[in-house]
Structures are given as C-alpha cells and as structure tokens.
C-alpha cells in the first residue's frame, strides 16, 4: 500500500478508475439508474479535471434520446426525494451536488452526440426542480455550511461552484476575511481551513493568517499546501504573491509574458488578447493587485483601501499619484526581464517582491 494521497488526488483516482471500467462496457441491457450514475460520474470527472476515456463518449453517443430521457427521469426522482428538514440537510446538499455533476455530464454527453441537452425529454423539468431545491437550500443553509456538509464531494467544488448561489454566512465569508486581522491566532490555527479558504489563499492571498498559521502547526497540511501551490503554478493558474512568498521565500515570481493569439471574427486578422494575472493581496498593506499584459506593455493595477498607499515602485517607474476609484496604475514596457515591485503605505509598511518575466 502506498501513502495516502491528497483528497483531490484520491477522488481523481477513483473517478478515473470508474470511468476506465465503465468505458470497457456497453449500456446493454439498458438500466436508467446505471446510465444516470455514469453521466454523474462523467460530470464528477469533468469537474475535478480527471481524464475521460474517449471510448466513453463513443458509447454515450450510441445511447438513444429516450434512454437519456429515462436517465434524466431517474435524476429527477433523486431530486424529488431530497429530504428538506434541517436535520437531514446534509443529504439534500449531497443530492444537489450530484445533480450538478449530472447536468455537467449530460451536457457533455449531448456534445458527443451532436445534440442539445435542452431538447431532451425531461431536461427542463430537471432544471426546474433543481432550482426549487436551490431556493429551499438557500433558506436553510449558508454557502459555507453547505460546503462543509458536502463531505467528500466538496473537493469537486474547485471546478464548479453551485454553492455560491447560496447566501453567505457573514461571519465566515471568505471574500470578507481580512487576511491580517480577521481571525485571532488561537482560533485561526486550531481549525483546518476549508478547501474554499485554501483555494482563496493560493489564488488571492485571502485568509493568509489562518492558512499559514495552520500550516505552521501541521506538517502534513504544510506539505499538501506546498504540493497544491506547485501543482497550480505548473498548470499556469494564478498563484498569489503571498502564497508564492510562503512557498518560495524571496525567489523572483515568474510571470509568463505569453499572450494568446486569436483570429478576429470579422476580418480574420490575428489579434493578440490582453492577459490579466491576479497577484492577490499585498499584506501587510491593505491592497491587492493585478497585472495586465499585452504585446508592448505591462500594466500594474493596485486597488487600495482608500488612503492606504503612499508610493508604488514597479519596474523602475515610481509613482505617488493615485488614479481613480482607489486604484493605482503603473505602466511599463514588457521588454524588461526582472522588475521590482515595491509598495509603501502611509504608515511606513512595505510590500516588496521581484517579478521575473519569461516567454
């Protein structure tokens, strides 16, 4: 036996194994409950980024419209039987999440068949009942609580976020967490951050104190966090400057200069699109930043709490002039390789890092 994997890797393995076994089978004799579970598993795979064997799409493309309708009816029955009492809310949240995967899997199945999910018998009714359940859940549970109650399936939320339609619990709202002050040390270091919090930390630097304090006291969590940051960085996902600093210390932050090319629909000319990279929060300064890169320029935007920043230096250009709406903007030529970013606030605190441009 090998050492236990991270939860996401573990689920991905299970889903991949299931799909591999499923793809070696046919749907004959047809069973609507099995078809519904296959489509839901396909949805799980798409949500978590697992590889889907191409032969599965071949098989699904041979399932008739009526058979898909029967699978939808099975999914509808699952939703209808969702318990709606507060005591059983966990089961209802689970049913709702299965419905999310089912819908994603069904839409992908229809793409493989060259059809449209909305045209399938029962699909509109499925979505109506799903919305009905959403409204009911919204009365009974907050987004944060729902994510907790999802158990194993909450790890799928990294790729789909139906829970954001629920009201947020203001005392546990990730988006409102001030990364330096919101959680006192004793509280923040004793509770394991949820997957949403970890994700927000890595991408935006939110809830830094909570995540970094917990990591400081828990070796396994620290190792997993490093792996997760490395994996996201490798996948060219946004990694916040704070998460990078925690991971790599003072090493320059690599920023790919690559700008996507695409054909303009009207003229057929090649156009380059601007690329936006979120840098996240700039603790200890109450501000966050992003970069916009195009062919010739790199634009740094820093969004501050009004009256916070005194001076910004970026790529050899410095400014003490704030723009509109509490936004500071510094534009530099994209020809440079290493660029110092230094932000100073009115209290004399500074945030400093080096961005390293690469092709």
């Amino acid at each position: 036996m090998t050492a236990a994997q991270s939860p996401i890797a573990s689920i991905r393995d299970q889903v991949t194994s299931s799909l591999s076994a499923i793809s070696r089978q046919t749907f004959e004799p047809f069973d609507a409950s099995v078809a519904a579970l296959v489509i839901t598993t396909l949805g799980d795979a798409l949500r978590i980024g697992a590889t889907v064997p191409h032969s599965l799409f071949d098989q699904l493309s041979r399932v008739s419209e009526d058979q898909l309708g029967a699978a939808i009816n099975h999914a509808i029955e699952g939703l209808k039987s969702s318990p709606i009492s507060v005591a059983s809310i966990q089961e209802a949240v689970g049913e709702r999440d299965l419905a999310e995967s089912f819908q994603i899997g069904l839409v992908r199945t229809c793409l493989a068949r060259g059809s449209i999910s909305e045209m399938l018998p029962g699909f509109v009714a499925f979505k109506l009942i799903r919305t009905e359940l959403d409204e009911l859940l919204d009365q009974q549970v907050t987004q944060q609580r729902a994510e907790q109650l999802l158990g194993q399936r909450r790890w799928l939320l990294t790729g789909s976020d139906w829970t954001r339609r629920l009201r947020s619990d203001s005392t546990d709202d990730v988006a409102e967490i001030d990364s330096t002050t919101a959680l006192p040390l004793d509280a923040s270091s004793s509770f394991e951050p949820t997957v949403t919090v970890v994700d927000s930390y890595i991408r935006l630097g939110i809830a830094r104190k909570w995540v970094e304090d917990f990591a400081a006291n828990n070796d396994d969590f620290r190792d997993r966090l490093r792996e997760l940051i490395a994996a996201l960085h490798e996948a060219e996902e946004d990694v916040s400057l704070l998460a990078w600093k925690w991971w790599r210390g003072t090493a320059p932050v690599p920023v790919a200069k690559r700008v996507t090319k695409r054909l303009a629909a009207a003229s057929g000319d090649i156009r380059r699109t601007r690329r936006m990279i979120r840098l996240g929060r700039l603790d200890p300064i109450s501000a966050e930043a992003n970069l916009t890169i195009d062919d010739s320029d790199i634009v740094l935007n820093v969004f501050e709490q009004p009256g916070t920043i005194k001076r910004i230096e970026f790529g050899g250009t410095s400014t003490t002039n704030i723009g509109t709406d509490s936004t500071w903007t510094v534009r530099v030529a994209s020809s440079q390789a290493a660029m110092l970013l230094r932000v100073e606030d009115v209290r004399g605190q500074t945030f400093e890092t080096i961005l390293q441009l690469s092709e």
Partner: protein
Amino acid sequence: MVRIPQRVFRLGPLRCAPRDIPLSVWQAHVIKHPFGLNALMTPRLHGGKRRWDEEGWHTEAHPVITGEMRREIAERITALSSEGKSCRVSRLSNEEYGGDVPNDWEACYRCPQQLAESCAEILKPVSGAYASVLDDTLALLDDPNGKLVSRASFAAALWRCTPSHSRPKGLAALSVGIIRSNDRTRTVARINSSAGTRIEFQLDGAEMRWRTTYRKPVRTVGAQLAFLMDYPETPFVPHTLSDLVLIPRLWSEENGVGS
C-alpha cells in the same frame, strides 16, 4: 446500558470491542430507524406522506421488524406509565405522516431511566435484531475475512459487475474519513453494505465506538453502486486508510479486486 458489539472484531488495523451505550441513546436509535420515526419525520422536496418502513428493515431475510410487530409494540409503549411519566414521542403509532415535524419526536434521549427500561423490554425483539445487524456486518470484515484494497480498484470492480446487473450481495465496505457537524469534526469509520445498511463508528486512534446504524434503501443498481462508494470525507491531511476500503476477502477474490 446496552453492550455492543457482542465480541471483539479486528478490522484491518482497526478494532471494535464491546462498549456500553447509554440505554436512552440506544432506544432513540431503535425508534428512529427500525421503528421508522426518522422516515416519518423527514419531509421530502416533493413529498406527500412518508411511511414508517422507508428504511426497509422489514425487507431483510430475517426482518428486524414487521408491520404487525410495530403495531403491537406501539400500543404497548403508548400504554406504558412509570411514576406518572409516559412516552413523549409524538406520532409513535403513525404508520404514515406528512404534517409539520413536532419538536419532541426525539424525546427518547431525555426519557426517564425507569420508563426507558420498561420500553426496552417491549422493544427487545426489534432491539436484538437491530444489534445483530451490527455484529453480522462486522463479521463480514473481521480478520481474516476482510481485505484492504484501494478505493480505485474497488470502484472498478463494482463497475465491472454492472453489465450483468448482478447486484452484489453480502458485500460490506469499510472506509475512514471525517464528518462535520456544527460543533466539531469527527474521524469516523463507515461501513456501507450491499443491502443498504450504513453503520458508523467514531474512531479514537484504532478503536471504533458505535455511533449509528441506519438504512438507505438501494432499489436500483445505480443507487446501490453509489451507496457502496459513498465514503466519509477525506480530510485535507489524509488518514492512513483514506485511499483504502476494507471489503470481504471472498468478494475481492471472486471479483478480481487488486490491492
């Protein structure tokens, strides 16, 4: 107190030894699950009336309870009186219900000791059969009957069973993970059986302490597959058994499950 299970079971690296469960807690579970109050008091999105037998304890090869037994027991419990106190569980006699959920339907947890003891006598046939489900299920996985396999290979083996629609029988799968409630996170061992029975244990190191037994009817092949693979949450810092599942060795060998 009720002592469960009847003997020591060794389940891979885990151990489940007999422990005393407070009578009120045990009675509450018997009333909620085999007796069906939980089903009656759980309204559904498109519900209507719920039936007491939705957990399906009457469908076992050796039924834990039947409709006739239930009617008789309900009558006797309702007639009980001890020191001026009587049963306060609402709708105990109902066989179906679709109204508002009363606050006191879980009154067993607060039942006076003497009344609970009298009630336990009446419920003995159901209670004994309910407890046996625990022992019988643990026996499927007790050393050397159990085998630890990866969840991935177990999933693949279950899917391989589906084309013939041969629904697994005598299968139980033990997994370890966490469950969250309002106040805390608990590490639990969960057993899902092919009959739709779920048994959960609180885990303290390697020691398992029973926390609940209930059933989720698995009427379709798909529902059974999903139920068997419904594990407790893997924590961000995984448990050593997080990627594994303990299943009957015989089933594993018959279905070619690799480790």
